[in-house]
């Protein structure tokens, strides 16, 4: 079907063009194949980034285009780095990042380890566990506000069913002590399967002959786990942490729908904070400087981490 279509297109191509295409050298084809991707990335990733850096040194505001553009040097940067509100939102992000990664690694790895015991029907259950990942984070955040409602929410009801606390006595997203955990729970629910899949891939890549050799040497199960399983899955686990770390550092959609940064600004992660500055207060120059700081932070942390990852891989 596809083949005949391709043939038809090939036949429909004017001979002059066909000859020209056929006559292309490998070098020309290489450039023809690579150029569109590079151009698109330059136009939609790199050019805007350079523009952001330029704007970060100005007092530009999108909602006042007629105002004279003034270069104000590092003023935006000094203002951000001395702002205590921004440090609070950095702290909120750190809390979110550390706990989601810790929980997802722990649960995700355990699940992968159990699934790798290859019990009957493990494929079906793996597919079921993976489903939350397919949902839209914004819709998930929105629907969980319903599950978190005191009294009628399923979550509160389930907690009261297990612990006996009255379901209307606490509000996960209304309380300043519980809200940071509310976002951690939803993110963990949604993304543990991702960590699990990567760990499972790691576990399946270990050749069984290694275990057979260990068995011959009478190594205990405990010892086999720590000297074979864990070190061999570690690079995969670290890859999972890298992906989740980058994603959660940028976290916006799920949390903005779930808590909107509240109550107060207790769950206002840096991306939400940045979006407010850029698209609600329209302080474009200031927000650009903020964006640059965030980008440098994530880029710096990620490259240190990738170095560590490569070291682990080489071992």
């Amino acid at each position: 079907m596809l083949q005949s279509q391709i043939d038809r297109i090939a036949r429909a191509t004017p001979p002059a063009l066909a000859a020209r295409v056929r006559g292309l050298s490998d070098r020309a084809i290489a450039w023809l194949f690579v150029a569109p991707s590079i151009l698109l990335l330059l136009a939609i990733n790199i050019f805007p980034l350079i523009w952001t850096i330029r704007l970060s040194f100005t007092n530009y505001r999108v909602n006042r285009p007629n105002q004279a553009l003034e270069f104000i040097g590092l003023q935006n940067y000094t203002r951000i780095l001395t702002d205590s509100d921004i440090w609070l939102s950095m702290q909120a992000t750190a809390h979110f990042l550390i706990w989601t990664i810790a929980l997802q690694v722990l649960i995700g790895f355990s699940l992968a380890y159990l699934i790798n015991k290859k019990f009957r029907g493990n494929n079906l259950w793996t597919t079921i566990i993976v489903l939350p990942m397919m949902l839209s984070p914004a819709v998930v955040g929105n629907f969980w506000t319903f599950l978190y409602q005191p009294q009628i929410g399923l979550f509160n009801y389930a907690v009261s069913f297990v612990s006996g606390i009255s379901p209307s006595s606490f509000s996960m997203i209304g309380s300043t002590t519980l809200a940071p955990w509310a976002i951690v729970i939803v993110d963990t629910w949604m993304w543990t399967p991702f960590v699990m899949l990567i760990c499972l891939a790691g576990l399946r890549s270990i050749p069984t002959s290694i275990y057979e050799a260990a068995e011959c040497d009478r190594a205990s199960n405990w010892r086999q786990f720590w000297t074979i399983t864990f070190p061999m899955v570690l690079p995969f686990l670290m890859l999972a942490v890298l992906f989740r770390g980058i994603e959660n550092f940028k976290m916006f959609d799920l949390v903005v729908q779930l808590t909107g940064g509240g109550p107060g600004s207790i769950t206002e992660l840096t991306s939400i904070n940045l979006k407010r500055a850029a698209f609600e207060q329209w302080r474009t120059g200031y927000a650009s400087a903020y964006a640059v700081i965030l980008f440098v932070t994530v880029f710096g942390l990620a490259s240190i981490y990738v170095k560590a990852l490569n070291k682990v891989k080489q071992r």
Partner: protein
Amino acid sequence: MSSYSVAEPSGAQKLVAGALVILYACITSLPLLWIIATGFKSPSDAIAYPPKVIFEPTVEGYVNLFTTRTRMPQEQLDALGPPQTWYDKIVRKDGVIITGASRFAGRFYNSVIIGFGSTALCIVLGTAAAYAFSRFKVPFKDDLLFFILSTRMMPPIAVAIPIFLMFRQLGLSDTHAGLILLYTAVNLSLSVWLLKGFIDEIPVEYEEAALIDGYTRFQAFYKVVLPQAATGIASTAIFCLIFAWNEYAFAVLLTSGTAQTAPPFIPTIIGVSGQDWPAVAAGATIFLVPVMVFTILLRKHLLRGITFGAVRK
């Protein structure tokens, strides 16, 4: 003891492992089942205390999702006569009439165009670039590959401001083309890296044989390499689609009316008092179906894709 194998866990181990995994799967699928169930509840059942597990199913949520309604006093309702259609009948008992179609169908259509459009574009560009990186001597190959990967680390909000300005300038804001290009650019790094891994695994000898048989480079590419890379392309497509389908931040900032996708729309579905949960749940369920079907069909390739092709099977 002849059948004993250390690689094969014992029966007791399997039983315990299976029980624990099934327990987790049951707990973790509760919120998802709740979303699906809420879609078939009446608004009063949805907010009942204690939460109702057994209820009389109704498609009211789905009707509400696709329509706009207005409340009418009883005497005017009576004057209208009996309801004409089955969906009229469902809402009439709440004292409202249907005044028209909601914007959900349009938003869903936008999601289909943008989600599948950007996935297709991303696969085309990604396959071409990956093939070139895999087979030819591209100058500065490693630098270009790292450059492509590094674009993935950029927080979307960090580039949202200039993209917002740029799109406004070029007339791309709130258009299908604008979002398709944007999502393609965001997914391209993933697609190039994944596909390069897959194409690297295809032996070069196949193409060389084809070239000797008189095929051109292009023919060798689409007649020999493409069919071999099909599974890799499938798993890459899943990840591109999941991202483009569910993306929210860019969609909410760069679209408002004509090209808005479903994720920013679903949370704004409002009923008479606050959010209309059955309609929201119905929207979430319908929205999940295409990507779920796509994933289940291609689930065998999921594991390979997620690890950049590191695992063969």
